[in-house]
């Protein structure tokens, strides 16, 4: 079954769209039709709004999870098992949108990248390589070299501990940068964190290969 996301398209008027079931007016962001109760397509709101959260880098994980589970409880397709195929498909697209929002906001790196994307600092998809300054690239290369020279599980784990500490520090740098609305600083720290994550992943793979 293909999931069709029905974002807009059905003639939004003064913020209203037409309910697919009773064809009456429904507010663009409503989850259910106030006239007939039918579940509505997800619409195009940002991930924060979808989960009922303030747009901010600093979010409380437990609160995020509570919001996510609360919405899944009413929108998950399993709640519509006896309903027509169309209604199930709409519920599924709602669940897809919730999962995407949760996945993006749950990970601090993805959340930071998303905020930068919303602000127009980085473009859709991959990281903007032009902001990568020479020093940062050199640093990343040196670390990668150190990893390739590391012999034995202990040496790799030592590297991982250091890099892990650095990643935690970067998170607080990112948090402060967003709080001060210094998006350029946030972007630099996000880039460094991206490299740190990559290095950690490579170290993990190398360690796993040694343990085999």
């Amino acid at each position, binding site marked *: *079954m*293909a*999931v069709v*996301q029905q974002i807009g398209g059905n003639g939004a*008027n*003064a*913020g*209203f769209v*037409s*309910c697919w*079931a*009773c*064809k*009456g*007016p*429904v*507010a*663009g*962001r*409503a*989850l*259910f*039709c*106030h*006239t*007939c*109760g*039918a579940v509505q397509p997800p619409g195009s709101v940002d991930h924060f709004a979808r989960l*009922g959260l303030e747009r901010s880098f600093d979010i409380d994980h437990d609160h995020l999870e*509570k*919001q996510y*589970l*609360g*919405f*899944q*409880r*009413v*929108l*998950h*397709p*399993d*709640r519509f*098992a*006896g*309903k*027509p*195929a*169309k*209604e199930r498909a709409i519920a*599924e*697209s709602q*669940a*897809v949108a919730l*999962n*995407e929002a*949760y*996945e993006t906001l749950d990970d601090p790196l993805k959340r930071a990248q998303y905020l930068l994307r919303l602000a127009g600092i980085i473009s859709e*998809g991959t990281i903007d390589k032009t902001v990568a300054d020479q020093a940062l690239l050199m640093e990343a290369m040196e670390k990668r070299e150190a990893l390739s020279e590391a012999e034995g599980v202990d040496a790799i784990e030592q590297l991982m501990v250091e890099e892990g500490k650095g990643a935690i520090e970067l998170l607080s740098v990112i948090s402060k940068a967003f709080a001060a609305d210094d998006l350029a600083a946030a972007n630099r720290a996000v880039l460094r964190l991206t490299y740190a994550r990559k290095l950690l992943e490579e170290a*993990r793979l190398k360690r*796993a290969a040694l343990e085999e």
Partner: protein
Amino acid sequence: MLLQIHEPGETPEPHALERSQAIGIDLGTTNSVVAMVSGSHPEVLRDSHGEGLVPSVVAYLGEEPVVGKAALAELPRHPDRVIASVKRLMGRGLGDVKRLAGALPYEVAENDKGGMVRLRVGDRVVSPVEISADILKALKTRAEEKLGHRVEKAVITVPAYFDDAARNATKDAARLAGLEVLRLVNEPTAAALAYGLDSAAEGIYAVYDLGGGTFDISLLKLQKGVFQVLATGGDSALGGDDFDHALAEWAMKRTGIAGLTSGEAKILLQAARAAKERLTMAPGAELKATIAGHEIRQSIDRGTFEVLIEPLIGRTLRACRQVLEDARLTAADVKGVVLVGGSTRVPLVRAFVADFFKQQPLADIDPDEVVAVGAALQAHALTRGSDTLLLDVIPLSLGIETMGGIVEKVIERNTPIPVTKAQDFTTYQDGQTGMLIHAVQGERETVDACRSLGRFELTGIPSMVAGAARIRVTFAVDADGLLTVSAEERTTGVKAEIAVKPSYGLSDEEMATMLRDSLTHAREDMERRLLLESRVEAERVLLALAAALKADGGLLGPAERSEVDRAASGLRQAVAGEDRARIHAGMEALDRATHGFAQKRMDLAIQAALKGQRLDEVEAGMATDGAP
């Protein structure tokens, strides 16, 4: 006789309530179990001897296949006509099966068409889907005999680590057996459901599921009725069957016998299984089998057996370590460990699991029945409503083959489902108008090391210079874990055609032929299901109209109102009938008749909004319907 065919006239039209009754099925490698919720308690459906397990064994002797214990009894006399452990072949190609080491207990039919492996059984050739369908039919019949009416809906469990091809094959088998699959649920998730409802458990639980042919390890977070899978892992080619193989190979080495036929291999494996089961209870056992007139008798003590299986258990613990790492957790975070699958009865397995998680695992629900119980609970939840919710993940990453046979991952493993993700690709030749998209599943970086799911030929790309086209490939995984791929050229908006060639599935034509040849009323069932779906849809439309008339009926003049009422009653009559086409025509007629009404309602809302009634107030009022 387990298999009976109901003539349409034989079964009286059941009540609507019975109609919606759904069963839970654990379609296992070694044994299958069917359960359902009656009243408020899940119950395993047993035979007259109180036995809930139906051996997943099918014998093809006469016209009708024989399933279960009766089939197993035929094994010594007709080893070439009795098929066991077919689950290991679901969604598998010929190459996969040949890679399985040792003497094969299957006679594989060579075919040059590719696709799913076929087995030679006596004088016929059957697919694993058909064999599984025969097992499902037997389970369906057991439920129908117990209930005294037809059963049409089921929740069927699959190993969490099943790939897309194996999931599709399972769904096809259900279709062939005349069962509508409400949901494919992962076995560990079902087991957690069976435990969670009893104890209202909260926290992180590990489910260690060692079945006959597959191993799954899942980590779930339980809170207030939500079962959220955090990570899942395992090995789809590791199970209790491998313990049997290890024992059988040991016996072959000791006795010096070699070059067994597939029939002899089956008999030896059966003897090995019996010895393994005795070793679970007793410190020693004897492996006895008669092969080609020679009697084999080998005594084995538990210590020797444990040396044989230790490397296999070690493999399961490696997967446990990986899944904890994936979820960024340690063994200390795990509040409880649930054991699933008959192979977890082996004392060494329990000892290793207890040592790994530093706690005694839970096994108060029969590990052979716990999955079916969970499936029954989920079937009940889906048909009758419930506060529990299962949120699962995709077990293996999904990706696309790129230049040089390298895999570009589109969806990472352990991503919550349902999920939709898109990735952009481009052409690499001037004027290229077609593109072969090869979808694969697995964690490795090269295509050869991953499983091929299907090849999708994208045609009709407008001619452009190399690199100018933007081809967006969208992967959509539904709540059953099944993948749909679509593609579109973005710069021109041309939606290109996609031809799906499943690598290890059955084509639509093959499925149609099987349905036609099937002795059951599968095709009839499907027709009826379509009729029911149309009715549900029409009733939804009528319900929505009633709500709209109640709210805004005043907008209609008497003539308009009677036109709408006429169309509505026309549809109501169609719904009462049996003609699907008439229901569709009725819905279209109602759609036309209510067009003006819909327009008036829309205009009214817009006018109200323009007059200053604040839209965000309206929104706020509506959004609270679904807010947590």
